[in-house]
C-alpha cells in the first residue's frame, strides 16, 4: 500500500512579502515538508489568476494552494482581500462542478510563520495524497 502511494504534485503560489518569506523561514529553521510542494513566487496573492490554477490542474497538478499575507497585512494594503473573494468564488465553483474541494486551499502565512508554512504544506500534501490522483477535472468533459 505504502509502496504504491500516489505522489501528488502540489503547486503553491506564495506572495513575495509574507508567504514566500514564511517559506524561506521554514527553510532557515530546517522545518521539513514534502518535496512535492513547488513554490511559484508572485508579488501578491492577488496576482494569482484563476487561469493559473486551472492551468496547473490541466497540466497534472493534484492540488493548488495560494498563500498570502494575513488579511490586513497585505504589502499592497488590499490585494489579499481581493484574493479572498476571488478564490472563495472560484473554489466554490469548482466544488459545484464536483471537483474535490480539498484540492484547493487559501492560507494566510506571514513572514514570521515558518512553522505554519511547513505545517500547512504537510497537512495539504497529506490531504491531497489521500484523495489520490486528480482525475475529475480531466474527466469532467468525457462522457461516462
Amino acid at each position, binding site marked *: 500500500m505504502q509502496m504504491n502511494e500516489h505522489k501528488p*504534485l502540489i*503547486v503553491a503560489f506564495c506572495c*513575495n512579502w509574507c508567504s*514566500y*518569506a514564511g*517559506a*524561506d*523561514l*521554514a*527553510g*532557515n529553521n*530546517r*522545518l*521539513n*515538508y514534502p*518535496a512535492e510542494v*513547488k*513554490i*511559484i*513566487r*508572485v*508579488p*501578491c496573492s*492577488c*496576482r*494569482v*489568476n*484563476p*487561469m*493559473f490554477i486551472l*492551468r*496547473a490542474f490541466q*497540466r*497534472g*497538478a493534484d492540488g493548488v494552494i495560494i498563500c498570502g499575507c494575513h488579511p*490586513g497585512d497585505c*504589502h*499592497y*494594503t*488590499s*490585494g489579499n482581500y*481581493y484574493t479572498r473573494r*476571488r478564490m472563495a468564488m472560484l473554489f466554490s465553483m469548482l466544488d459545484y462542478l464536483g471537483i474535490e474541494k480539498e484540492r484547493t486551499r487559501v492560507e494566510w502565512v506571514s513572514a514570521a510563520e515558518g512553522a505554519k508554512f*511547513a505545517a500547512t504544506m504537510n497537512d495539504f500534501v497529506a490531504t491531497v495524497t489521500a484523495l489520490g490522483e486528480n482525475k475529475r477535472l480531466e474527466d469532467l468533459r468525457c462522457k461516462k
Partner: protein
Amino acid sequence: MQRIGVFVCWCGSNIAGTVDVHAVAEALKLEPGVVFSTDYQYMCSQAGQNIIKEAIAEHKLTGIVVCSCSPRMHEATFRKTAAAAGLNPYMVEIANIREQCSWVHKDMPIGTEKAIILGKAAIAKVNLNAPLTPGESPVTKRALVIGGGIAGIQTALDIADAGFPVDIVEKKPTIGGKMAQLDKTFPTLDCAACILTPKMVDVAQHDKIRIFSYSEVTEVKGFVGNFDVKIKKHARYVKEDVCTGCGDCVSKCPMKKVPNEFNLGMDNRHAIYIPFAQAVPKVATIDPNACNMIKNGKCGLCAKVCTAGAIDYTQKDEFIEEKYGAIVVATGYNHISMDKFDEFAYNQSKDVITSLEFERLTNAAGPTAGKLLRPSDGVHPHTIVFVQCVGSRCDACAEKGKEYCSKICCMYTAKHAMLTRDKYPDTDVYVFYIDVRTPGKNFDEFYRRAVEEYGVHYIKGMVGKVVPEGNKLKVQASDLLSNKQLHIDADLVVLAAAIEPDKSARPLATMLTASMDTNDFFTEAHPKLRPVESPTAGVFLSGACQGPKDIPETVSQAGAAASKVIGLLAKDKLTGNPCIAHSDEMMCNGCSSCERVCPYGAITYVDKEFRMPDRTTAIRRVASVNPAVCQGCGACTVACPSGAMDLKGFATSQIIAEVDAICK
C-alpha cells in the same frame, strides 16, 4: 530565442549537502535556451560573480538563472552582477534551491529532483523575460506637513533647516497643538510652553516655512515626488498679513460668552479671539458662528477699533493649490468622548474632569490662572481621585473604549499627582490603576518618586462608580491587592481618558490612499524597519497619528520622518520599480474593473482613436497605468476580463510557463 546561462550554487554544503549540484547543472543544460551551465561553491562571492560575468561575455548570454538561496537574499546581488557585465538586471531569475529545497528536504535524490524542477521553472520564466528599465519621475522639492502640533512643528523645522521649503497646514487658528495646552511635561517637569513656544516662533520666522493656519487639505492628487494638493483656507475675517495681534479688537468685542475651546470650555472667549498669548500666527480670528456682525450685520466694533484696518467681514474661504514632493501626516490625537462612561458621572458633575482639563486647571495661563480650584464652585479640592485607563485597554467586545493602551496616561497621572502634592501638601491624592506602565528613560524613577517622596496613594483596582452627592463625589472602588471595597469622598475626580486619532485622519487617509488600522491610526510601511513611512510612497507619518506617543517619542519620530523626507527631496529624480502593470491598448475594453481594484489610484483612462479590424477607426476608452504610482501588486491583472492588463516581471505568460515547467 534567449541564450541562457545557468549557475548552480553549492552554498558550501548548505545546498550541496542535500542537492547534487553537479547533476542539477547537467540536467538544466538540456533545457530550451540554455547555452551554458555550471556549478560553483559560492556564487555570491567575488569569484562566483566573476564566473557569471565571464560567462555573459563569453557565451553572449541574454538571460541568467541562478540556482541558489532565496531571491530575497541575493536577487539584488546577482542583478548587479548582470548589470556590471552589460546585461539588463531584470534578465536574472533565481531558483530558490536552498530555503525551499535543500534545507527542507533531507533526501539527496528527492532534493536533486526538486532542484532541477525549480531550475526548469526559472529557465521557462527567463525565456519570456524582457529587459526592463525603471521609469523616472521628477521631484518637487517642497514638503507638506499636515498638522501643526509638536510633531508637525519638529518635522517642518528639520526639513526646512535642511534647505527645503515646507508648508504646514493646521486646521486651528494657531499651531501648537495639544502640547500648547499642557502645563508641565514628564519626567523632567519643564513647562510645556517654555519648550514649545520658542519652536513655534522658529517656525514663524523660518524663511523656508509657510504656515496655513485655520486651513484644511481638501484634495490630494498625484504621487510620490509629484503631489498636487488643494488647501482650503477658512475665512478668519481678519487680514493675516495686516493684523498685528495687539488684541484691541478682542477686548472691545461685546460677544464674550463663547466657550473657549483652548481651555476645553472651562471659561469663555470673545467672538473675535486669539487662542492664547503665544499663538502663531498671532492674529485674531472671528468665530462666524458667534459674531453678530457676520450673523446679522449688527456691531462692527472690532473694525472700528482696529487701527491696522485688518478686519474684513467679507472675507471668503480661499483655495490654494500647490505642488509637493512629500507629505507628512501629523494629525495627532484627541481624547475619546466620555459620553459612554456614565459610571464616572462626567456629564453629571463639573468636578469630574479629564486629564487635559486638569492640565488647563493647573496651567498659569488657564481659566484659574494656575490655581487648582474645583470647576463647580471654585473651592480648592482636598481629596482628588485619579482614574487610569478610562477607555483604554478595553475588552475587544466592549461597546465603548479602545483595546489598546493609550501609553501616556500613567506618566501624566503620576505628574499630576506629584505636582498636586508638591503645591498643595494638604491634598489627599488617590490613583486607581490596572497596571502602572513606566518604560522610558527616567520614567519609573519618576513614578516611584510620586509614590515614595510625595505620598500619592496608588491603589491597584478600578473605580466602579462615581456618584455626585452634595458637594462631594462618592467614589466606589476596589482595592485588588487587599481585596477590599473602598468608598472615598472626593472633591475632584480626574479621568485619564483614552486617546484616539483625530477625526480628520480618516478622510485624509482616503485622500492620500494611505492605509489605516481598525483604530484609525495610520499604518506604517513596516512596523519595525519603516516606522515613519506610510505604505503609500511619499507619505510619511509623524507623531500620534501613527499610534499613542509621548512628547520625546513624537519628537524623535518627527525628526525621523523629516530625515526620510529630506532623503526624498534631495533626489532630482525618482527611479521606480519597473515590475509594474501595463495595459495592452489593443485589447483593453476600458471597463474600469482594473481602476476599481487598484489600491494606489494608478490607473486612469484616455479616449484614443484606433484602427478597427474592418479598417474603420473608432474612439475607444483605454486604461493607462501611471508608472510612478503603480507598485506592481497585480490586482488589476486578474480583475481585467480581457487580459489586456499584465504585470512586467510577473507576466501571465511567464507564470503560466512556470506552472507548465513544474507540472511537466
